[in-house]
């Protein structure tokens, strides 16, 4: 499939020139095309932020909801219509800050959806405050003396919650990112991909170069199936490992655990009403 299928006419992309978001958009469209995702069978779900504008720039179905609330909407969409491929694409503030509770609990739900989190270690759209992943000491107009909070480690938390697919990518390396994105979408279960994405405007510390210098790629000798080993990798910081860090192929998905799909795979909106059953239920009250 040609990735042009996702292109839109006359779009005015609101990102800054040079922003890592462009790379993510490219890789995402390429991978979607490679997998062969039909625009009308695919939904991109996002919250609010610079990253979260993605659904307006890729021609698929789109649910651009509230800041921090992409995941609940995405999981519900998948649950109501498991035939759709559901991709969440949003920012680090959105997904780990405002949306932190949905992050941890939707890992527990394990719907077969994929989440790409643009980790630029800053709040872009609101002009440069710290995000949960901002490094200690990072100075901003609000964090005037630098960040004093422990940075949120999404990979470690995801592993602690036994997310079945946990990866970290750096959009500075598009090939590797593409390979990770593809595995993530194709994985049957909830896949979390934390994507390092330089913000050229508000993060002058964690630049393309910084990400290059402070990361390394896990090689083939690394098997992501051991949770303890994965945790060790997850808390490595100097440098930060890239790749698929943890995988657990034995988990049943949320949709497949729902009783409505036990005997019948028809999507909900196509099902007939059960009016006779309802009459029987009402009549059974005594």
């Amino acid at each position: 499939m040609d990735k042009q299928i996702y292109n839109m006419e006359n779009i005015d992309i609101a990102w800054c020139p040079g922003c890592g978001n462009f790379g993510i958009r490219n890789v995402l469209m390429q991978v979607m095309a490679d997998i062969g995702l039909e625009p009308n069978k695919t939904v991109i779900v996002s919250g609010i932020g610079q990253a979260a504008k993605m659904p307006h720039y890729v021609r698929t179905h789109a649910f651009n909801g509230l800041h921090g609330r992409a995941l609940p909407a995405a999981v519900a969409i998948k649950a109501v219509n498991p035939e759709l491929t559901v991709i969440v694409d949003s920012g680090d503030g959105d997904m780990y800050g405002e949306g932190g509770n949905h992050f941890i609990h939707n890992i527990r739900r394990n719907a077969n959806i994929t989440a790409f989190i643009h980790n630029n270690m800053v709040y872009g759209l609101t002009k440069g405050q710290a995000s949960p992943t901002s490094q200690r000491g990072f100075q901003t107009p609000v964090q005037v003396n630098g960040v004093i909070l422990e940075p949120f480690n999404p990979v470690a938390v995801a592993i602690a919650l036994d997310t079945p697919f946990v990866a970290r990518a750096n959009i500075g390396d598009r090939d590797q990112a593409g390979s990770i994105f593809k595995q993530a979408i194709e994985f049957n279960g909830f896949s979390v991909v934390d994507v390092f994405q330089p913000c050229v405007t508000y993060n002058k510390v964690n630049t393309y170069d910084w990400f290059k210098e402070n990361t390394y790629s896990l090689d083939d000798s690394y098997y992501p199936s051991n949770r303890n080993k994965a945790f060790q990798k997850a808390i490595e910081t100097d440098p930060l490992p890239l790749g698929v860090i943890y995988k657990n192929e034995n988990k049943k998905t949320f949709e497949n655990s729902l009783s409505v799909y036990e005997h019948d795979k028809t999507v909900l909106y196509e099902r007939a009403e059960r009016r006779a059953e309802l009459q029987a239920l009402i009549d059974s009250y005594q």
Partner: protein
Amino acid sequence: MNGNTTKNDDVSIVLGGAAGQGIQTVEQLLVHLFKASGYHLYATKEYMSRVRGGSNSTELRVSSKPVRAFVNRMDFLIPLDKDVLKRLNSRITDDTVIIGDKKKLLGKNGDESLDIIDIPLSDLSKEIGGAIYSNILIVGALTAIFNIDQELLHNQLQASFGAKGEDIVAKNIKAAKIGYGYGQELASTGKVKVNVTKGQKVEKQIVIDGSHAVGLGAIAGGCNFIATYPMSPSTAVLTFLAQQGERFNIIAEQTEDEIAGMNMALGASYAGARAMVTTSGGGYALMVEALSLAGAAELPLVVHLAQRPGPATGLPTRSEQGDLLFALYSGHGEFPRIIYAPGSLLDAFELSQKAFNMAEKYQVPVFLLTDQYFVDSYYNIPKIDVSKYKNENYIIKAEKGYKRYEVTENGVSPRSIPGYGPEVVIADSHEHDEEGHISEDHDNRIRMVDKRLRKQGALLTDAIPPLREGPDNAANLVVCWGSTYQIVQEAINNLGRDDVALLYFRQVYPFPSNTLDYFRNAKNVIVIENNATGQFAQMLHLFPHIEVHQNILKYNGLPFSVEEVEKELNQKLK
């Protein structure tokens, strides 16, 4: 105590005890038995916010004619412990027949003025096998007093306790029989006398409570998705739909918090489900941002808001109509909505069913405003004929050129869902263009605001008018909304005056265009509501510009009783 119940064809029985003492078992057994015997039946409960202990009570009304409201009167009081006597003391009159374990209830410093008909429940139940049998002893006694077929009772005990083994069933039946003996003694000696007529019509009816009425209406309205976080008194609707999920293709998900619940419901709605949430004030407060999303993205949604007294945690298990204006103005920005407030079980069913259709038709959030009193009250109603309630489909295929937010005359844009048709479907929380993409254009903004607000006008064509009862030219017009309806209705009936009419709003917003007509002849408009600030009266003043002359308000956490309303009206009628 004179041994005669005040109105012996309409008897109220109050059972009181601590949480965990089993009043609910008694309640359920009795509701079933009374109704199966052909009595009209009403029950409601009030309880503390605790799992064990405290002091709770259930009121059962058994009557020859339909009864559907809480009365203060206690014809029978069955206290399982002393606290009940203390707590319900103000409701005990000379006419109250108190039945119970005299020794336990009066103790050493017992209130000697209280005349208690003794059944030595403690001793008897100990003999049978444990304190728990006290409850069945009472059931037995009451079935004697109300002349209930003992086979019916025994079968019911078999059905209720069969799973626990024959021994338990046998003990229960034994307790029932002993209780029956005591009851018969009371009835035959004329110590207590009731005269309620049974009727075959009732036998064929059903008994449901407010939660089930809402839940059944939801199923009738095509609800197939509920996502919510538990919160008293709204949880029963979630529980009910979860239990019916497999049978009716409903996904019922308990979420990590209310925010997730509301956003899941909206995701589900986008994907084509008929989605709802059920919650109470504090939980709803957390959903308010997403309500605004429903407004912006024009996603159908039903919100069951079961009110309880606030602010904050307030009185978690009590009743109040305190969140009306909050529901009306909640959500940042301006967008239309509908608010229903059922006052009868049938209305709850019908409004719930209708809510889903209106939400789909106009792509607006629709509220069902109930309260603890309403969801926890039940009575017999005729079987509901499902075939009378049709659902309309408002979803179209997204064909080429499809625009999710097309500007139309009545403001309603054609709605499609992802995967249905070749074109893509966008839901967006920003101000957007007709396709659904972000637009910062100022003229587009005006078009879109106008489009959304036009729906508020359009949906008036489906507005449910208030229900007026009583003479056309009555000078006194008593106005109520939601759960107080049948209480006020009974009070007005009792007053028996020909200058009083009742006006009951079950759609409380928006007001039908002809609302003023209903007030034309009224010289004295009295609004009754279960809150401290007269919220509906404010709305009447604001929207249809009604002059409200008097308010009757109650906000101690309890519903009005029929007697209270009577008394207040007696003072306020002109």
